[in-house]
């Protein structure tokens, strides 16, 4: 080869190298600019696709497998991709049921905010939507990472890149406020986020309305966040489940026995109430001041479905039991209120205050058929405030073994005091299962086995296991689920809870 050829190659190589260095410099300066921006105006919104997460979160990087450098499992992406129903949330909008719903409702379900808000990610700003799609966002990914972890680009770059050790030093508040990473460690914030779809959030336009149900949307079950998370299956670990080296990094002392799961159950019990009441407040306030007759009444979805939707039996247990107020006026659903007792027990408060606040809500519903929207708004707002106070106090409270047993006994006590409906019963037993699972040591002798037997019997009665994952289809299991609801006998549940109460150790 002539020398001139090698000279030309060398020049080309130098030029290419220079170009690469130059481009990386400019890229860094773009990031720098973004970071400078975030300091001034808060985090930059961006809806990113899963490809931005999957490169790191598919498996732990080989060099750091035994190094506790990473707080997370780094396998979140395949867990979500292969096992999590959230992945299919958007694709169900293309199925037969959704198509029929669209026909009956008269709008395009794959585009409507009231559908995509929960079955995907709704982006209001068209420019942001365009930019996000250009950078790889797609609705096809369903409820993906961005739906829960924060739709901002700042934290995505920061948390796993060269500044990740610096990132770890930041408080959760700083991570959220300055960089937009949703604080999902906080049990109240996590529950509120999940509840925004699984319970509803009127402020975000996420409400399954009665016409949607009538058109074919499966009824929303009651929501217990610890149970639902386990069955997702959750792609994160409780602190107790993490590697010891990671626990050390997080300054967690196993001997301290942080009752993370129990705390989640107790706090989420109040958060569910708050979220229900917040939606109720907003919707009733809008109804109270609506000019158009079509908007003046409360949407029927805010009432207890089964108050109306039951075949009439003769004799009727409702008539035998009697009604707290006027007969035949549908009330709010009961299940968001049932686990409030755990929060009250945790803080050593009695239930008189809560009962008084709840009575105002019930009276507002009783005042006239379909409730008095103005009165409902006032009572619901007061409930939101009450809930916020409780949550704040609960965040600072701690549990121990004795406290856990007190909570379990409280669940048994409340089941004895009142006949619970199907959804409330599920909340109670889900809460029981979760708190019980954290007990160490378990009850002695064969008590543990007997308790597990009761759980199995209650599973038969209440269908406690959820149609999670891609294999279990909600619509396929719906006939059986509804049949359980329709044949539910409150006294049966009461008897099982009495048996459970006997199996718990005396204080």
């Amino acid at each position: 080869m002539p020398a001139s050829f090698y000279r030309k190659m060398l020049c080309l190589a130098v030029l290419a190298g220079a170009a690469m260095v130059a481009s990386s410099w400019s890229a860094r300066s773009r990031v720098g600019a973004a970071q400078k921006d975030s300091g001034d105006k808060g985090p930059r919104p961006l809806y990113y696709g899963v490809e931005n997460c999957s490169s790191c979160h598919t498996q732990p990087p080989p060099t750091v497998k035994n190094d506790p450098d990473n707080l997370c499992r780094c396998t979140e992406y395949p867990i979500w991709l292969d096992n999590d129903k959230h992945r299919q949330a958007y694709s169900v909008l293309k199925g037969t049921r959704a198509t029929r719903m669209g026909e009956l409702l008269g709008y395009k379900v794959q585009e409507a905010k009231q559908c995509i808000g929960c079955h995907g990610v709704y982006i209001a700003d068209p420019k942001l939507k365009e930019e996000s799609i250009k950078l790889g966002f797609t609705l096809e990914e369903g409820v993906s990472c961005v739906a829960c972890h924060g739709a901002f680009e700042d934290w995505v770059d920061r948390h796993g890149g060269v500044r990740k050790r610096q990132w770890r030093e930041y408080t959760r508040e700083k991570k959220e406020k300055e960089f937009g990473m949703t604080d999902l460690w906080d049990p109240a914030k996590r529950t509120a986020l999940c509840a925004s779809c699984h319970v509803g959030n009127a402020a975000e336009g996420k409400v399954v309305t009665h016409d949607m149900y009538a058109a074919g949307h499966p009824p929303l079950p009651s929501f217990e966040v610890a149970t639902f998370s386990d069955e997702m299956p959750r792609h994160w670990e409780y602190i107790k489940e993490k590697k010891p080296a990671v626990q050390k990094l997080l300054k967690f002392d196993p001997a301290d026995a942080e009752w993370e799961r129990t705390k989640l159950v107790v706090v989420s019990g109040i958060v569910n109430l708050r979220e229900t009441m917040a939606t109720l407040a907003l919707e009733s306030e809008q109804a109270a001041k609506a000019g158009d007759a079509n908007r003046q009444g409360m949407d029927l979805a805010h009432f207890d479905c089964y108050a109306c939707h039951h075949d009439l039996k003769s004799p009727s247990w409702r008539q035998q039991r009697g009604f707290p107020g006027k007969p035949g006026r549908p009330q709010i659903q009961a299940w968001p209120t049932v686990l409030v007792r755990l929060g009250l027990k945790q803080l050593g408060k009695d239930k008189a205050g809560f009962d008084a606040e709840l009575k105002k809500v019930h009276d507002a519903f009783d005042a006239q058929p379909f409730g008095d929207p103005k009165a409902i708004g006032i009572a619901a707002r007061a409930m939101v405030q009450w809930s916020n106070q409780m949550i704040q106090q609960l965040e600072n409270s701690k549990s121990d073994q004795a406290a856990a047993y007190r909570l379990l006994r409280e669940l048994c006590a409340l089941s004895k005091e009142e006949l619970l409906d199907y959804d409330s019963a599920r909340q109670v037993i889900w809460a029981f299962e979760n708190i019980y699972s954290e007990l160490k040591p378990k009850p002695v002798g064969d008590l543990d086995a007997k308790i597990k037997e009761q759980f199995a019997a209650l599973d038969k009665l209440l269908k406690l296991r959820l149609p999670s994952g891609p294999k279990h289809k909600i619509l396929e299991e719906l006939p059986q689920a509804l049949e359980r609801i329709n044949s539910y006998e409150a006294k049966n549940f009461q008897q099982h809870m009495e048996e459970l109460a006997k199996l718990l150790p005396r204080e």
Partner: protein
Amino acid sequence: MDAVMKRVGRGLVLLSAVILVLKGFGPTERSVAALGQQAGNADDPWNRFEWQGAGRCSSTACHNKGGAPGTKRSEYTTWLTSDKHATAYQTLSTDRSKIIERNLNSPGADWHSVRPETDNLCLKCHAAKTNQALRAKVPLEDGVSCENCHGPAEKWLADHTQPGFHDRAPAAKLELGMVDLTAGNLAGRIRVCVDCHVGNGPHGMEVNHDLIAAGHPRLNFEFSVFMTNYPKHWVEEQDEARAWSLGQLVTAKAALQLVEYRADPRNQRPWPEYAEYDCFACHHDLVEPSWRQQRGYTNRRPGELPWGTWYFAQTEQLAAGLGTHLNALRREMARPAPDRAAVKREAEALATQLQNAAAGAGSAKLAPPALRATLTRIEKDFQARNFPNWDAAAQLYLRFAALNHALNNLEGSEDVQFQSALKAMGEDLAFPKSYDSPRDFQPKPRSK
């Protein structure tokens, strides 16, 4: 003389005082109104005259001869031995009635201790349909007795035994308080039935959803079948076809007057009133698959409440041009907060149309070929499941029953095919054991 005049004068003053005092305690129009009732007008003898009680009709020489049910002069005997109206008051002492009373008026109380038999709301239909003052003489144990239909006997009890009374004009008899229940005034008779069996708002006779939820059965009145099954204490030639048409129109009109009454905010009734709607649109278990979702929702958004499905299922078949106001009512009542003024307006307009239709209804008697044609059509409709809900299917069945009965009367025998069709329809509609709703009933066949 002066002393006598003084005594007479004092006596007159005393007498006038006594008369004035007695008038003050007696049932005057003003005191009747003060008790919350409309002062009785000519059309409403029940609130104009004093009731006497069925005992006044029960002499063996008059209406209690003790003969076979339905025979002349044994009207009281028939009523006492065969008529459910006679036990209407006793019903109020049952456990069920006590539970209803407890649920409605005394939540939390022990139901053994409540007394529905003293509740005026119950007594209006289960005993005498007037106020306490006018029924002071009536033993409530009479239940729904003679005067509830025939009018209070205060002014005609003595008169009607006299020769020539029978030939007086109905208007003249009504002036005395005797109601014309003859076949020539069938619409008038039906209006008497519907006071209780549908409701009469101004007279406080109303079974609303509060009462039904408390435990009261739903009102499902259809005149011709009720009349066919009624153990009559009189003899008359049956014309079920006419009874059916007129029954539908008069019943529907009463239902419209009731919704007007409920819509009027001055009457302070619960609004919207749930009993106005199809019970089973709400009261059904949620099932999967859902035939309602498969069938779809005509003229309303999914999940909106369908109004008037019982009383107005067949109305549009009875006269032309009823669709405008009827559909306007359906649309308005389907809203979560129906506009009261609009409902009143449309109900009034429709009621007038029904009144006009009733005036010309069923004057010509239907002959067997016409009856057969209608019966065949209904049978086909039923087999094709050509109805949107149970209420509509049930009304179709009752029409079939009425016309079938009419045909049997005219031909003197039963048509085997129609009879078995009737039986099949009835079985299809029947509620399953221990249910008060059509749990397994599906109007449209399942779509593939």
